[in-house]
C-alpha cells in the first residue's frame, strides 16, 4: 500500500466504477468480488467529486474497502512467503552439497551415496520442492541435517532471543532518535543540530561488525562494566541492543528531523503559533504527531532489516538467536533448517509490514486503500 496524500482521486475515477443497483434501493452499495466498492449516491450526484468532498456514508464504504483491502493484502503476503521460500529452496540446493559438509571428510563414496539417497537428494529438484511444500503445509519442515532435530522447533526455540534483541534495539533506536530528532529540528543550525547530523551520518555508516567489537573492547575489556557476550540479564542486552539499534536510530532521527522541519513550515503550525501557543506545545502536541507518521512506517520496515541485521550482531555477541542459527545453517547447506528459518522470518516480516500499513491508515485519515 502506498501512502496516499489528500486529493488522490483515482480510487473514485470513472474508469473503475461499475454500476450495481440493488433491487429497490438505488442508493445502496454492494461489495462484490469483482467490482470495486462504490457509493451510488455519488454516482447519482455526478462524477468527478473534487478533493475534500466527503462521500455520503463513508463508514459503510470504508468497511467494504477495508475488507477488500485486507483480503488482497493477505493474498499478497501469502504469495510473498511462498515466493521467498521457493527462491531460497532452489538457490540453496543449487549452490552446495550437504553430504560433503556433514559427513566426515574420509567417508567412503558409498557412504556419501547412501546418505544422499536417504535424504532424497537424488530426486530431481522440482520433485524435492514438491515434497518439501507438501510437508511444510502440514507444519513439518523436516529434521535439521546437522542437528537431527525438528527444524521448525529449533527455529521457534531461538525466536524469543532474537525478538528480545530486536525489540531492545528498536527501543534504543527510538529513545535516542526521537528526542534528538525533535531537538535538532527545533534548534536548526545550532551546535546540537550539527552534532546530531554528524552522529546520524556516523550511525548509518558504521559497520555493525566493527561497532560491536569496539563496544566490547571499550566496555567489557577495558572498563569491565558490561559482559562481552552471551544472553542473561539486562547487562547482557545493553551492548548488543546498542549495536543493532544504531543504524535504525540514525535513520529514524534523520527522517524525523527532516519531517519536522517540513511540518514546522506548514500553515497550521503558523496558525498555532499565532494563536499564542507556547512553542513546546506547538511542537509536541501538533507537529510531532504528524511527523511521527512516516516514522511509524519506517520503523515497521526497519523491523525487517533489524531481524536480518541481527545475524551479525548475534554472531559477534554470541547471542543465541535465529540469525546466528540461519547463518550457520546456510554455511552447512542444512536445507531443512534454512527453509524453516526463512519461512518464520518471512512470516514475521510480512505480518509486521501488514500491521504497520493498517495502523498507518488508521492513524492518517487522508490515506485511502487502493
Amino acid at each position, binding site marked *: 500500500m502506498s501512502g496516499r496524500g489528500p486529493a488522490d482521486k483515482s480510487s473514485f475515477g470513472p474508469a473503475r466504477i461499475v454500476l450495481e443497483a440493488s433491487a429497490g434501493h438505488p442508493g445502496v452499495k454492494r461489495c462484490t468480488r469483482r467490482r470495486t466498492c462504490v457509493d451510488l449516491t455519488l454516482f447519482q450526484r455526478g462524477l468527478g467529486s473534487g478533493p475534500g468532498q466527503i462521500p455520503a456514508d463513508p463508514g459503510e464504504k470504508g468497511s467494504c474497502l477495508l475488507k477488500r483491502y485486507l483480503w488482497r493484502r493477505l493474498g499478497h503476503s501469502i504469495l510473498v512467503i511462498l515466493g521467498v521460500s521457493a527462491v531460497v529452496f532452489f538457490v540453496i540446493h543449487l549452490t552446495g552439497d550437504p*553430504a560433503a559438509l556433514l559427513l566426515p571428510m574420509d567417508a*567412503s563414496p558409498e*557412504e556419501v551415496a547412501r546418505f544422499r539417497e536417504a535424504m532424497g537428494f537424488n530426486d530431481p529438484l522440482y520433485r524435492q520442492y514438491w515434497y518439501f511444500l507438501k510437508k511444510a503445509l502440514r507444519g513439518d519442515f523436516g529434521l535439521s541435517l546437522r542437528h537431527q*532435530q525438528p527444524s521448525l522447533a529449533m527455529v521457534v526455540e531461538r525466536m524469543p532471543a532474537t525478538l528480545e534483541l530486536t525489540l531492545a534495539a528498536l527501543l534504543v533506536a527510538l529513545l535516542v532518535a526521537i528526542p534528538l530528532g525533535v531537538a535538532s529540528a527545533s534548534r536548526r543550525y545550532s551546535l546540537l543540530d550539527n552534532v546530531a547530523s554528524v552522529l546520524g551520518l556516523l550511525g548509518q555508516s558504521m559497520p555493525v561488525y566493527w561497532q560491536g567489537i569496539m563496544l566490547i573492547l571499550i566496555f567489557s575489556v577495558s572498563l569491565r562494566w558490561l559482559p562481552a*557476550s*552471551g*544472553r542473561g540479564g539486562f547487562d547482557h542486552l545493553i551492548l548488543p541492543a546498542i549495536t543493532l539499534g544504531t543504524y535504525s536510530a540514525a535513520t529514524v532521527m534523520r527522517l524525523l528531523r527532516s519531517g519536522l522541519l517540513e511540518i514546522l513550515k506548514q500553515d497550521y503550525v503558523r496558525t498555532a503559533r499565532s494563536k499564542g501557543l507556547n512553542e513546546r506545545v506547538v511542537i509536541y502536541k501538533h507537529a510531532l504527531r504528524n511527523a511521527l507518521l512516516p516514522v511509524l512506517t519506517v520503523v515497521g520496515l526497519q523491523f525487517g532489516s533489524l531481524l536480518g541485521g541481527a545475524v551479525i550482531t548475534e554472531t*559477534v555477541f554470541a547471542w*543465541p538467536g535465529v540469525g546466528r542459527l540461519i547463518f550457520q545453517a546456510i*554455511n552447512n547447506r542444512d536445507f531443512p533448517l534454512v527453509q524453516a528459518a526463512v519461512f518464520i522470518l518471512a512470516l514475521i516480516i510480512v505480518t509486521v509490514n501488514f500491521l504497520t500499513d493498517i495502523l498507518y491508515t488508521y492513524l492518517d485519515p487522508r490515506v485511502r486503500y487502493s
Partner: protein
Amino acid sequence: MVLVLALLVVALAGCGGGSGEKKESGTPAKSGPSGQVVVAQGVDATTMDPAMHAETPTGNIQRNIFDPLIQRNREMKLEPGLALSWKTLDDRTWEIVLRQGVKFHDGTPFTAKDVKFTLERIINPDQKSPRRSNLEAIEKVEIVDDYKVKITTKAPYPILPARLADELIVPADYVKKVGDAEFAKKPIGTGPYKFVKWVKDDQVVLEANTEYWRGAPAIKTVIFRPIPETSTRIAELQTGAVDIIVNVPPDQVQTLESGANTRVSTAPSARVIFIGFVTNKGGPLANPKVRQAINYAVDVDSIIKNILKGNGYRVASPLTTAHFGYDPTVKPYPYDPAKAKALLKEAGYPDGLELTMDSPNGRYLMDKEIAEAVVGQLAQVGIKVKLNVLEWGVYVKKIMAKELTGMYLLGWGNTTFDADGTLYPLLRSGQRFSYYENPKLDKLLDEARSIIDEKKRLADYQEAVKIINQDAAWLFLHQQRDIYGVSKRLDWEARPDELLWMYEAKLK
C-alpha cells in the same frame, strides 16, 4: 509506542537463559572437586548422542561425559580406557577385555552389552549415523562374557584400535528406555563429568562425577560456551569470563602472552595444509618435473615465518611425526628458484606457463593468504597462476564432484594418526579426494591397509611416502599448530588431537 516496546523487552528478557552466572573463585581442593571453568569453542554441540555427529567441537563436550574403550595419552599413543587390553586372535578377530567396577552416572554397571550396543548402533544403517564409515570394517561384535568382547572384521583391519579410540560408549539400557531423542538431550555416560543442562547456542553445563573410576576430577563445574566470533572469544578470555579459548589467530598471540591474566598454549595439530595437483587430467601438472619445479619455487619457510608468525611445522609429505608411517629420512624440497626454472625448461616450458588454483577462504588458518603468497612466488619463476577463492560449501562440492583442474589448497586432519587415514583417501587412484594415479603407490597402500604385521606396514608406508615426495604429488606446505588462549589461573595444556578433556585440568 515506546512504552509498549519497553514492556515487551522486559517480558522477553525474563524468559532469557543465563550466561550471567557468577564465577566462583578456585578454592584449594581440600576434599572433592571445586571451582568452575568455562571453555569457549566456535560452535555449539549439535547433539549429546555420540553416534549422531562427526564434529570435533561436539565430540569435545561429549568426551567429558562418556569414555571410549581405548584412549590416547598426550603423546597420542593408545592406552586402556574402558578396555583393559586388546589383542588379535587371528587376522580378522580381536578380543577386548573390559574394565570392571565402572558405573554409568545413573548407577548401572558398565558391561559388554553396552559395548555391543554402542558399536552395532553406529553400524546400523537405520540409525543413519554420520560416523558409520568409521566402523564399516566391523562385521560383528560378540559378547564372550560380561567383561569380554570379540570383534570380527570383514578383512584384516590393522587400525581397529585407533578407530575404537574415537567412539564413546553409551548405556544400552538407558538409551533403549528413553529413546534416541531424549538421550540426545539428556545423556548419561561413564565419564568424569555429569550432564546438568544445555541451553542451545548458549552453554552446556557439566558437573563433576565424584564416583568416576579414575578418581574424582579436580574441577567441580565445567561450562562450554559457543562464541563464534574470534575477537569476542579473545575479549572474554581477557575479562576472565572464559578460561580456555580455541583457534587463536597468530597475530593475537603477542596480546595474550603479554596480558595480565592470559597466556597461550600450543600443540602440533593432526592437520596438514597442502596444495594438491590435478595430475590425471593431462596438461603441465601431469609432468612430475613441473610439479617438482613448483616445489622448488615456493619458499615455504618464509610463508610459515611471515604469514603464520612461526606457527607451523614444515612437512615433506602428507604425514606428521605423530603419524604411524612417517619417514624421518624424507626431507622437504629446498627453496631454489634457479633449479625450478631449470626443471621447467627441461619439461618443455622455458617461457613459463599458466595454471589455475582454487582456495577456500577462512576454512583453514590464513588459507587465502597462503594461496596468494604461493601465487606471488610462482610468478617469479614464470608460472602465472589464476587464483579462485571459493566459499567452503561450494569448494567442497567442486572437489567431491571431481571438477577441479589445476592446483587446489586443502587441509587434512586424521585423528587415527595412521598413514592409511591420510594417504588412502587423498592419493590412491579413484578415491574421493584423489587426483593422483600411481599404480606403484596404489599397490603399497592397498597392501598396507590389509595386513596386521606392523613392521611390514611401516616399511610399506615409508616407501609410499618416498614416492609421494619424489614424484611431487603435492606442493607440500606445513603442519598446523593449534593455538589456544588460556587463563593464567588454569593449569592445562593443549593436545594434538584437539580434545578438551577437562579431567586433565586443574585450577592453580
